[in-house]
């Protein structure tokens, strides 16, 4: 261990920080990741980030994680990984340097310096973001002309759109394709109420035996395109059902000579004449 780091040994850092009111309030959601926490801690040391005491920082971070774990049991794994790594780095900084440095490991001081550098980089970007944010911004602080009157527009050769738009357009379609579902249109049925009303209107004309297929409306007719409206089968079926209801009411007679033969309908004339059969 070099002397450079000895003066910075300060195991009471956290306690002091608490006393100074500098301790971080544990707020995992406020920090996006370990680096952000480290940066926030480092800033509280109020020194040039490159001259940062990594030992002090490690102490503070470990305390932070300790505290955070108490508040939030499911502390993100990367916070813990960073904590253990910092503990390791700290131990290496504190231990006397081996005579024969291990070949595959950089000196601890160097790693510490790089961490400090990395924090300085992030800090620079944070400041830059703040700098950008405080610049006069269009439509917030400065304004262009509010009322560009209608000027004759001539389309230019320039085409609007960027690669991102192209990708989005592509994906929008491919995902549509991937999740395309087949939804058959439900066949429309000829409503029973409508069939009943129509049949009632037709009663005066049904004074002779008329085949059911002649009574049922033809609608758009067979082979009509587009599946608009109920099918012929639905017209026939609904008319038959309505007919049977009218038979039950005694307003209509129905007959079928044998199974599968045509069904004939006729208005019931006398209250006494029986119905032959109902299909």
């Amino acid at each position: 261990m070099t002397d450079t780091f000895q003066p910075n040994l300060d195991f009471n850092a956290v306690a002091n920080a608490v006393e100074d009111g500098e301790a971080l309030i544990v707020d995992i959601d406020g920090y996006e990741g370990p680096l952000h926490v480290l940066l926030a801690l480092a800033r509280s040391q109020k020194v040039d980030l490159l001259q940062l005491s990594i030992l002090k920082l490690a102490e503070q971070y470990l305390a932070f994680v300790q505290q955070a774990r108490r508040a939030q049991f499911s502390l993100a794994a990367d916070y813990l990984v960073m904590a253990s790594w910092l503990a390791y780095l700290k131990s290496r900084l504190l231990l006397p340097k081996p005579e024969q440095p291990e070949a595959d490991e950089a000196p601890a001081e160097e790693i510490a310096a790089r961490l400090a550098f990395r924090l300085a980089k992030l800090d620079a970007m944070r400041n830059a973001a703040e700098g950008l944010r405080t610049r006069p911004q269009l439509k917030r602080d400065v304004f262009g002309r509010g009322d560009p009157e209608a000027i004759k527009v001539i389309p230019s050769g320039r085409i609007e759109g960027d690669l991102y738009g192209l990708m989005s357009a592509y994906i929008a379609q491919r995902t549509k394709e991937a999740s395309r579902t087949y939804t058959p249109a439900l066949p429309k049925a000829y409503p029973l109420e409508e069939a009943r009303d129509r049949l009632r209107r037709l009663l005066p004309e049904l004074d002779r035996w008329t085949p059911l297929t002649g009574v049922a409306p033809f609608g758009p007719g067979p082979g009509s395109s587009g599946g608009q409206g109920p099918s012929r089968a639905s017209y026939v079926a609904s008319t038959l059902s309505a007919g049977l209801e009218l038979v039950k009411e005694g307003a209509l007679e129905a007959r079928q000579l044998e199974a599968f033969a045509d069904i004939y309908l006729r208005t019931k004339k006398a209250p006494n004449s029986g119905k032959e059969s109902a299909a």
Partner: protein
Amino acid sequence: MSDAAYTEREVEALLFAAAGPLSDADLAKRLPESADVAGAIAGLQARYAGRGVELVAVAGRWRFQTAADLAWLMTDEREEPRRLSRAAQETLAIVAYHQPVTRAEIEAVRGVQASKGTLDVLLELSLVRMRGRRRTPGRPITYGTTDAFLEHYGLASVGDLPGAAEMRAAGLLSLDLPADFAVPDPNALGADEDPLDEGDAPQFHTDFLGEET
């Protein structure tokens, strides 16, 4: 700066940024009570007299407008970039990723019939070209993108089109896609493609030959 000069600046900025003409009262409402709006207007009118932009009163309210004698300048002032329709954008994307692709294949991906106009627009804008003919019955024409397309989208080659991983990284691909979802590699040149015949479309033919080498 004197108060009067400052008020003049304020009125100038307000009139410039306002969506419509402003009356004296409109201006006074936005300025400190002591501000001399009429004085500021008079000052501005003098300052802008004879300039390319003038301060005029319309229906009792003030606005800046370009000088009448410069109207001839304003005809082609605003260059409106040509906006691709949604259909065109989608068709272009399919051509880009699936080239060489036939019209029928475009329709298969889009799930709708490609209107003749959509491809025509892209051909006319030189974003898409006829590449050749597919060696299948009917020998349908295949389409691909042009150098102008690459230029517009800042791509060095069609191989640089973002792949599935990058789409996922950009948050465009949701996770519930089928596992075998793949984005085709437009670099894989269609082996089942013939060059265009003479007379198919001379201008594109030349293009095509030029790029084959």
